[in-house]
């Protein structure tokens, strides 16, 4: 039967099921197809910390949300238009987010008495009319899949496992997604198990046909590709972008990349990704702990490599002492903290921005470092380049504050060609003998940058010894002289402060130019703040937006920007850490807005907050 086709400009779908149901995979495949198709998109995978949380329970629910459109979008969206609920827990856990009228595709096979009571439904919501406000599609996904796979010589378990492919096929049909990519993916994934491969492909097609042939869906949707700037795009998540960015930085600077890392969620994928890039000479060292990871990276930096270490909150604590040493010996070092919800172990798979003050101040003594934060998954690439530039030019540790939301969330990203990227090798030079008139002075600073010479082993005539004990200005020999210490403390600070002149000023987006309220954010909240701002402006509100990439030092114009507005709203996924520093540095009475739920802000919620601020401005 032919079906009517309806045009949409944007759709938000959410796959939800048990950790074991393969929702992340289904969501990821749908995303890849959507990327190939050319929509703009933004994703939000949300899963439990356990490998396999208990089946059918609320903590066990794993979901994947995808927002795609024919125009540029900023977030995975607040409210799904379609929810795929593979079991009662998935329905219960996600229903609150659904707007009335949304489509719910429920796998009836799993709505058994046992599963219902497990999450506290005393009646079956698919039958008791409690979902009347929604478009319910009650489909026995498991049994149809199993039936469709009867012909194959595979276990019942394997047949059931294929139900995620059935759902995927159904949605691909519903939204007119290409299928070839998925088929190719399945072929390679199950290359070693041909029967399973065929079965999964069959399940996918069964889902597709189900959509096409049954009465279940009366319309099919079409979302035109988005008109993105020309270029070769790939869908990328933050951790991958950061990894590729580091590889690019290595090539652009001519410095071999050495990663010292200890696995930790949500940072591990950077180690995984970089360990594949042997062909670019990338060396990855899985250390015995975080201290060793950063220590090895610093050792590599001392040897003239681009030393990098990656971790998350608890691991950052352990790196503090070595970062302090790096600040004291003034060597380049890139530290990536992929923030997660704390304190302590906290909620490993949930996002948060609460490591800012630790990054700025979490070391003994006055040990200033550079701190920067990416704003979107793709921006993690750019941030890696900027971190490298500042680290090698100023011989300083640079901390990158990404987070779980950026790490796993994805968006289409235009693959740049090396040619258009900055030549980082021009930003620094290793010291060579002729630099040093007379005896080599390892702490003689460049008057411009205040950076000390980076003299690497193997350079004849520059043999020298450095360490964490206070050093005499210039000569770098051990010194306990009181005034020298005061001077060195101030020089180290001045070097970092001076970088303000070498970074982009803060840009303010204020189209009407008459906004009296500024919303100032940093890091991963860029998307939700931007989306909220759009809502406010759509509703006729006038508001300006600015987003900080550099948190230490701040852009030189930050103080002036703050002064220009009656009210400055600072939304953060912490208890107001940036706000504290802004107030302390500029005595600006900024307004903090904080939600620390382990999730990105909802644009609508933020829009409300902004409107209140405008109303009181």
């Amino acid at each position: 039967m032919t079906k009517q086709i309806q045009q949409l400009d944007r759709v938000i779908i959410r796959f939800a099921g048990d950790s074991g149901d393969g929702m992340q995979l289904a969501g990821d495949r749908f995303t890849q197809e959507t990327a190939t198709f050319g929509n703009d998109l933004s994703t939000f995978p949300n899963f439990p910390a356990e490998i396999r949380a208990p089946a059918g329970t609320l903590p066990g629910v794993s979901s994947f949300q995808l927002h795609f459109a024919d125009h540029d979008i900023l977030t995975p969206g607040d409210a799904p238009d379609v929810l795929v609920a593979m079991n009662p827990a998935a329905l219960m856990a996600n229903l609150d987010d659904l707007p009335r009228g949304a489509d719910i595709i429920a796998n009836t096979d799993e709505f058994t008495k046992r599963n219902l009571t497990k999450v506290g439904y005393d009646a079956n919501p698919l039958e008791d009319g409690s979902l009347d406000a929604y478009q319910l599609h009650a489909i026995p996904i498991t049994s149809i899949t199993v039936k469709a796979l009867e012909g194959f010589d595979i276990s019942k378990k394997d047949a059931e496992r294929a139900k995620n492919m059935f759902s995927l096929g159904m949605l691909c049909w519903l939204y007119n997604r290409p299928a070839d990519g998925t088929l190719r993916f399945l072929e390679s994934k199950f290359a070693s198990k041909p029967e399973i491969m065929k079965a999964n492909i069959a399940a996918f097609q069964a889902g597709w046909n189900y959509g096409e042939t049954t009465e279940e869906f009366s319309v099919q949707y079409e979302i035109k590709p988005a008109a993105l700037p020309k270029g070769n795009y790939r869908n990328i998540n933050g951790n991958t972008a950061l990894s590729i960015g580091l590889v690019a930085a290595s090539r652009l600077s001519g410095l071999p990349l050495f990663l010292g890392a200890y696995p930790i969620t949500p940072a591990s994928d950077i180690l995984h990704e970089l360990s594949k890039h042997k062909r670019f000479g990338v060396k990855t060292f899985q250390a015995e702990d975080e201290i060793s990871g950063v220590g090895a990276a610093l050792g590599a930096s001392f040897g003239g490599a681009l030393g990098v270490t990656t971790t998350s909150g608890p691991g950052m604590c352990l790196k503090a002492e070595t970062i302090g040493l790096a600040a004291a010996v003034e060597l380049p070092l890139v530290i990536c903290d992929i923030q997660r919800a704390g304190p302590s172990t906290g909620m490993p798979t949930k996002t948060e921005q609460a490591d800012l003050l630790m990054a700025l101040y979490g070391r003994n003594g006055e040990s200033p470092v550079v701190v920067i934060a990416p704003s979107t998954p793709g921006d993690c690439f750019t941030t890696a380049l900027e971190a490298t530039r500042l680290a090698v030019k100023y011989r300083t540790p640079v901390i990158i504050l990404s987070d779980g939301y950026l790490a796993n969330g994805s968006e289409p990203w235009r693959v740049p060609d090396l040619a258009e990227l900055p030549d980082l090798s021009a930003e620094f030079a290793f010291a060579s003998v002729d630099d040093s008139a007379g005896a080599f002075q390892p702490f003689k600073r460049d008057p411009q940058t205040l950076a000390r010479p980076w003299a690497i082993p193997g350079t004849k005539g520059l043999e020298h010894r450095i360490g964490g004990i206070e050093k005499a200005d210039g000569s770098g020999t051990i010194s306990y002289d009181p005034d020298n210490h005061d001077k060195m403390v101030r020089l180290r600070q001045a070097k970092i402060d001076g970088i303000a002149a070498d970074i982009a000023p803060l840009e303010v987006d204020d189209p009407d130019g008459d906004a009296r309220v500024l919303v100032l954010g940093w890091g991963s909240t860029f998307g939700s703040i931007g989306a909220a701002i759009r809502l406010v402006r759509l509703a006729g509100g006038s508001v300006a937006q600015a987003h900080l990439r550099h948190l230490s030092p701040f852009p030189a114009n930050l103080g002036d920007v703050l002064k220009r507005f009656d009210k400055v709203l600072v939304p953060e996924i912490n208890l107001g850490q940036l706000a504290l520093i802004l107030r302390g540095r500029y005595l600006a009475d900024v307004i903090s807005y904080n939600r620390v739920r382990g999730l990105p802000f909802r644009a609508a919620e933020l829009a409300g907050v902004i409107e209140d601020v405008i109303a009181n401005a």
Partner: protein
Amino acid sequence: MPDTPKSLTLVPHSDERLGMKDFKSDQEVRWCPGCGDYAILAAFQSFLPELEVPRENLVIVSGIGCSSRLPYYVNSYGLHSIHGRAPAIATGLASSRQDLSVWVITGDGDALSIGGNHLIHALRRNVNIKILLFNNRIYGLTKGQYSPTSEQGKVTKSTPFGSLDTPFNPLSLALGAEASFVARTIDSDRKHLTSVLRAAADHRGAAFVEIYQNCPIYNDDAFLPVTEPGQREHNVVRLEHGQPVKYGPEGEHGLRFGKLGSIEAVAVADVDPESLLVHDAHVEDPSYAFALSRLDQTDFAHTPIGVFRSVERATYDDRMSEQISAVV
């Protein structure tokens, strides 16, 4: 040395004839009078020219402690890092720069207390670094607390009623951590110390060398039985590969395997010469070296020095480079 020491095959060769003085830095040495560290430093500096490595390709990494001040006194590249972390830092340096000869200087507190984890992992990985542990069985720099190698019951500032813990035997620990090269020597025996440094440099991989070092200020005479003329002849057991193990003023003592894999000291005269140990540093199974390491557990009655174990095993850094060259 005739041909290049195995740890240096990828390190440039120096054609200038360097002497001991070339390895002295301009820094005033800051150890207490009579500290064993002076003797070790001197032996090290006079040995270095042997390597025929350019000064600039020599890097010394240390942690924190009196011993860890050594890098300041050697005219090469040096990094005086933080407490216990030298093996980790050296691992990053050595595996990213195979053209360097990397030496780690550490103490019994630095290496075995706070740095224990990095040490055992560096040994297991077999990174091409040479680790010299100055064991004075005390925390010197912090003015005399007991260390993980202090004998049980030791009275120190932090243990006025005597320490409670069983000490580590550094060699047993290293062997338990899969070390491929394990040796012991003594600060005051310059000739032997030098021979052990030579052997370490000739080992490709992680070389672990325990050096008995006297701290006259906080733990004086800790090693008297093996340093004092009159006593040492009776207590020191010199291990030489391929040689029968004999010791005592007239070599009247020897070693042999007793029951259940333990090694016992015997009077040569009393036993079948066949049963006497002939030292083999190259046996794959570390059980032999381990048994040797247990000999001086209680007192110093018979204390082996020399190379306990030296077996060839691909190094971490070599393997790392191979994986890369395999794809590029």
